[in-house]
């Protein structure tokens, strides 16, 4: 019963993970590339899978080519690609617990690259739990991944460039979009930050393409507006939109109703942090990048020696940055594992670092274009669901706070918030925001429920097959303790 030893384990086979694996393998490292999904590519390179395409393919020639190159990069005996496999535990330095739906196993790795990506950041609002309200990522997965169109008419509402991409894609496949509702309202920011946006390279071309699609479609484009509530009984039937006024709050008196069977929403992305939090990696708060992001140095190494984090899973930056960060992380992880870097690899790294600097400038410009001061929590009513798994409402949390239960841990014990299947992914961000500045010391950060194994839910049955040495049984409660 030996545990496999490898040089670099890469968690997540999206843009960042695939490029990290490719570079690490190029250096001669033994790589294990783990991914939860059955197919590589993550969100951006989500491959269409069904035989029957109900929608035209939306992948550009450039992306198709890039993806093929990425797959070529991992097509080597040095890379063991493990799809359909979840990382549920990491301990020591570094034993990684894997589970593939049937059985668990461990690998020992000298270095780790976490490239687990991001998810849509959604602020709760009245009616957000209705079937038919989906995220921008959810819409993209239906169209690009499954070739299925969501039910029309669709309202696309929220904040950030992804929404525009989602809206443009919906239009391209012929779905009726009733309105695009974007919270930010500072088009002059494009001019203001033009100096940064120039560094976007092909991103600029893409942005212009999407905007053209939307402009040509003549779909109502409401800037400086937001959805204040979604309505429906069994599923979504309409949404109310209202303008956002100076102080970031919503002018409800000017609300108007739009019929919709699907609402595609999102306020940008936020990194998926279960594994970084399991490892205790240092975070920093970046409001323009979905809140908590992982701190990395120029090697893409985190605060834990030997753990590298790259792509949207470290700090939101989009596919171009993910590809570059993946390469940087892959090279440095291999170096950490003791693999020497040749001169050509060093040169490659230098080029990547320079690309990284340029892309960061573009990112900085882009996020400022979509910047806004919206007070999304202004939308909360006592009935608004905060914890979707346990149906904990904002009103219930408020009542507990009035009874003196004000810290996240106290609220968790009192309401079960964060204790459902999503392991707090849907609600702990809101809980943190709603409990900050409470308690005696306003500068002291509230202790949040700790992330513990399993990093994602796994079936108990997956733990029954791994070969283990005989157990060290707990003490028999009927006997005095054994003296050592």
């Amino acid at each position, binding site marked *: 019963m030996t545990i496999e030893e490898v040089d670099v384990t890469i968690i997540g086979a999206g843009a960042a993970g695939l490029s990290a694996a490719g570079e690490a393998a190029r250096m001669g490292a033994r790589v294990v590339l783990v991914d939860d999904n059955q197919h590589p590519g993550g969100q951006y390179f989500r491959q269409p899978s*069904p035989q029957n395409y109900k929608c035209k393919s939306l992948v550009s020639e450039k992306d198709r080519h890039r993806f093929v190159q990425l797959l070529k990069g991992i097509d080597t005996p040095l890379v063991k690609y493990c799809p359909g496999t979840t990382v549920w535990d990491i301990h020591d330095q570094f034993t990684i617990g894997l589970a593939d739906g049937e059985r668990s196993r461990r690998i020992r790795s000298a270095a780790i690259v976490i490239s687990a990506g991001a998810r849509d950041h959604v602020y709760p609002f009245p009616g957000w739990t209705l079937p038919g*309200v989906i995220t921008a990522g959810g819409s993209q997965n239906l169209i690009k991944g499954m070739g299925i169109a969501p039910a029309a008419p669709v309202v696309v509402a929220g904040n950030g460039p992804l929404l525009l991409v989602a809206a443009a894609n919906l239009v391209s496949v012929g779905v009726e979009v009733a309105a695009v509702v974007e919270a930010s309202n500072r088009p002059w920011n494009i001019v203001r930050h033009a100096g940064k946006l120039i560094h976007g390279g092909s991103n600029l071309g893409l942005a212009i393409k999407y905007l053209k699609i939307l402009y040509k479609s003549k779909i109502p484009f409401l800037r400086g507006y937001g959805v204040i509530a979604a309505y429906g009984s069994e599923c979504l039937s309409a949404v109310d939109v209202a303008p956002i006024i100076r102080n970031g709050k919503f002018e409800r008196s000017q609300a108007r109703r739009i019929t919709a069977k699907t609402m595609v929403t999102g306020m940008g992305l936020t990194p998926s942090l279960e594994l970084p939090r399991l490892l205790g990696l240092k975070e920093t708060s970046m409001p323009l990048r979905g809140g908590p992001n992982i701190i990395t140095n120029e090697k893409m190494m985190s605060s834990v020696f030997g753990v590298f984090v790259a792509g949207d899973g470290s700090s939101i930056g989009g596919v171009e940055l993910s590809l570059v960060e993946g390469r940087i992380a892959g090279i440095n992880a291999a170096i950490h594992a003791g693999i020497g870097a040749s001169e050509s690899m060093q040169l490659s790294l230098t080029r990547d670092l320079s690309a990284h600097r340029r892309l960061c400038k573009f990112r900085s410009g882009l996020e400022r274009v979509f910047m806004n001061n919206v007070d999304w929590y202004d939308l909360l009513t006592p009935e608004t669901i905060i914890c*979707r798994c346990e149906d904990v409402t904002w009103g219930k949390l408020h009542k507990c706070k009035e009874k003196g239960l004000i810290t996240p841990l106290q609220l968790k014990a009192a309401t079960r918030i964060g204790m459902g299947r999503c392991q707090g992914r849907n609600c702990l961000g809101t809980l943190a925001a709603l409990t900050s500045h409470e308690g005696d010391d306003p500068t002291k950060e509230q202790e949040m429920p700790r992330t513990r194994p399993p990093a994602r839910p796994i079936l108990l049955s997956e733990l029954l097959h791994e070969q283990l040495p005989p157990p060290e049984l707990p003490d028999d409660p009927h006997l005095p303790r054994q003296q050592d």
Partner: protein
Amino acid sequence: MNANGQLNFRFDGQEIIGYAGESIAAALIASGISATRLSATGMPRGYFCGMGVCWECVVRINGINTARACRQVVEDGMIVETVNAAEKL
């Protein structure tokens, strides 16, 4: 399953058409079904994030375990049922 990859599965007794490689959620949405579970207080819920992180689309597969409809691929003859979280012991 026929030559086109078309197959049939059941959702709460209703026969639904699916295609090889499709997720349960996609097949249901294509058939106009967006609600696939009842929450802790009986609210209808369904597909939300599409990438397996929100666990809203949980359904029961063949009467055994729960699975996320957005990730579980349809199989010919599969029995898919709503999970009712409001049903207490």
